[in-house]
């Protein structure tokens, strides 16, 4: 019995080791700075992570299904530009928001249809990676062409300007997280996605319409990126064609740090929320410690690599029955 318990603890460490390490950093920082643990700072962190968080929720489903979506960053820019243009030039507030969400879902639909069409009898993750990489480049360029690279400043007021204010970003993020958690854990839809991520050929053979699910996950990821774009453009009251550059990496980093395996079939929404919050807190802690943007990039990149290395290592240890 004692051995079993010991194994359980080592499994827990293997599953959440990186998160624990990061939590340790946070505790250290909280001792250094007084206003770190204030309610205001905590709310601030949640507000900051809500944009990346909503994106990360969408992309976790894609990753659980064994795919990848690199185009979400440029979808975020596109969505911001769409909603700002609609609000400014056509004074269409609610419709503008809907159109931005639709634009995100539409790009996701294109991604999904292409990827569903080309993944033949055997699954090839590399292809969704490269297709969405191409899409990222094309959509970013499209947004630049539309705006000529110029910032669009909002006029303020109206429905759209409220979405990014006060508690709304947090409410949207938490609400989306609950919906996604239920979707992935309590519905046949979610279970099927885990099935596909674990063993696509088996899913195909047991009659799962893999193509439908492939399209669906990319539409969801696109929609989430669109929503993130609406929140961000409302929060800063501006939209730019480069707003989302590199943000897909932040979202993917959160998923990876949370411990969702990039090979598909493992992980979950709860882990992504943890990853988002931990990275957000880390960023805030680095700010408090006066670490500037560029060294933060170095740390962020290293964390992604370490997280994946840790994941591979943990998988190996588990195969050997928990012995280090």
């Amino acid at each position, binding site marked *: 019995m004692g051995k079993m318990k010991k194994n359980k603890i080592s499994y827990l460490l293997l599953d959440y080791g990186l998160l624990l390490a990061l939590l340790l950093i946070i505790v250290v920082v909280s001792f250094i700075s007084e206003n770190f643990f204030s309610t205001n700072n905590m709310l601030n962190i949640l507000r900051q992570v809500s944009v990346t968080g909503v994106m990360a929720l969408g992309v976790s489903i894609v990753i659980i299904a064994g795919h990848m979506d690199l185009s979400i960053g440029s979808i975020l820019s596109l969505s911001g530009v769409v909603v700002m243009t609609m609000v400014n030039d056509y004074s269409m507030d609610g419709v503008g928001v809907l159109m931005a969400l639709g634009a995100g879902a539409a790009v996701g639909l294109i991604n999904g249809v292409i990827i569903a069409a080309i993944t033949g009898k055997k699954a090839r993750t590399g292809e969704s990676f490269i297709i969405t990489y191409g899409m990222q480049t094309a959509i970013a360029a499209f947004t630049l062409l539309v705006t000529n690279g110029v910032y669009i400043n909002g006029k303020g007021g109206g429905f759209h300007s409220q979405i990014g204010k006060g508690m709304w970003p947090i409410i949207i993020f938490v609400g989306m997280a609950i919906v996604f958690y239920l979707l992935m854990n309590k519905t046949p839809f979610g279970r099927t996605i885990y099935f596909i991520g674990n063993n696509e050929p088996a899913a195909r053979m047991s009659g799962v319409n893999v193509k439908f699910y492939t399209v669906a996950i990319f539409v969801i990821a696109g929609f989430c990126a669109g929503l993130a774009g609406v929140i961000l453009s409302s929060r800063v009251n501006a939209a730019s064609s480069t707003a989302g550059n590199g943000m897909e990496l932040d979202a993917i980093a959160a998923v990876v740090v949370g411990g969702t395996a990039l090979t598909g079939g493992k992980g979950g929404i709860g882990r992504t929320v943890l990853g988002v919050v931990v990275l957000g807190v880390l960023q805030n802690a680095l700010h408090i410690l006066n670490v500037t943007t560029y060294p*933060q990039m170095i740390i962020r990149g290293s964390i*992604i690599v370490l997280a994946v290395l840790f994941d591979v290592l943990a998988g190996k240890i588990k195969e050997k029955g928990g012995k280090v």
Partner: protein
Amino acid sequence: MRTAEKRIKFQPSKYIVLFLLIFLTILMTIMLDNFFTFNNIKNIFASFSVYGVTTIAMTYAIICAEFDLSVGSIMAFTSLVFANLANSTNLVTAIIVSLLVGLMFGALNGVIVAVGKVSSFVATLGTQIAIKGLALYYTDGYQVPIYSTTAYKMGNGELLGIPYLVLFFFLMLSLAWYVLKYTRFGRNLYAVGGNYDMAKLAGIKSWFYKFMIFVILGFCASISGIMIACRVASGNALHGADLTMTAVAAVVVGGTSLNGGSGGVWRTLAGLLVIYLLFNALTLLGLSAYWQQFLKGLIVIIVIVADALIQRHKED
């Protein structure tokens, strides 16, 4: 054995790229007055020789079924190292140290992928951000002008009307072609990329090849970094931002399959030519650089889709 048969039967768009190249050249010669002039052709070659060197290395990686997103960041970082050292010491030291930096980053990627067994997409996604951060941190985001006139001459001089950079590109291309075709290293690359497990069973140290691929990529990316620094007489953390996309586009347009195990460097040259001919046409037509970017993304998607559909057709 089935996969081996399939590979022999299926040779992705083997001649499509050549037809495309000839078609584009004829079309553009007819449509655009100033296209088929010596100066314009020279310009096309000069504009891709910098990225071309890394694109050759990317061909190796894709033959080996690997991928590197970090080459742009390595290129940016080495351009800064080169610029700083060219100003403070001499050119030889600057070149040697820059190349060593490239080798070091390449080896880092190689260890993570080959020894750590992390997928190369994700590993280089991480190092891409980290190295870019390092480059920005190094000079606080400022560009570094190079004062050496020799460096400028290296980047802009010509021999018999052909730029040094173009000559150097073809030197590298020939070397890469020779290694791929006539050495054991080259042949084993195809084996490792085609079927990792089979190559392992045949006694090939697969991890070593995966490792070497990233060392070569890092090395070539640092060469591109030195080349761009000489050409524009400055090091900049923003150099090479679109290097990965351009390299991948050129390799896949050339017809090297992303599944690994097939392809070659001459195909990559054809791919580079097709892409830069299109860019050149856009410039001559007076369209903005954003269109080039848009086209690049679109080309990659179209080629991958076409490739997959042709493959599906052959399988059925």
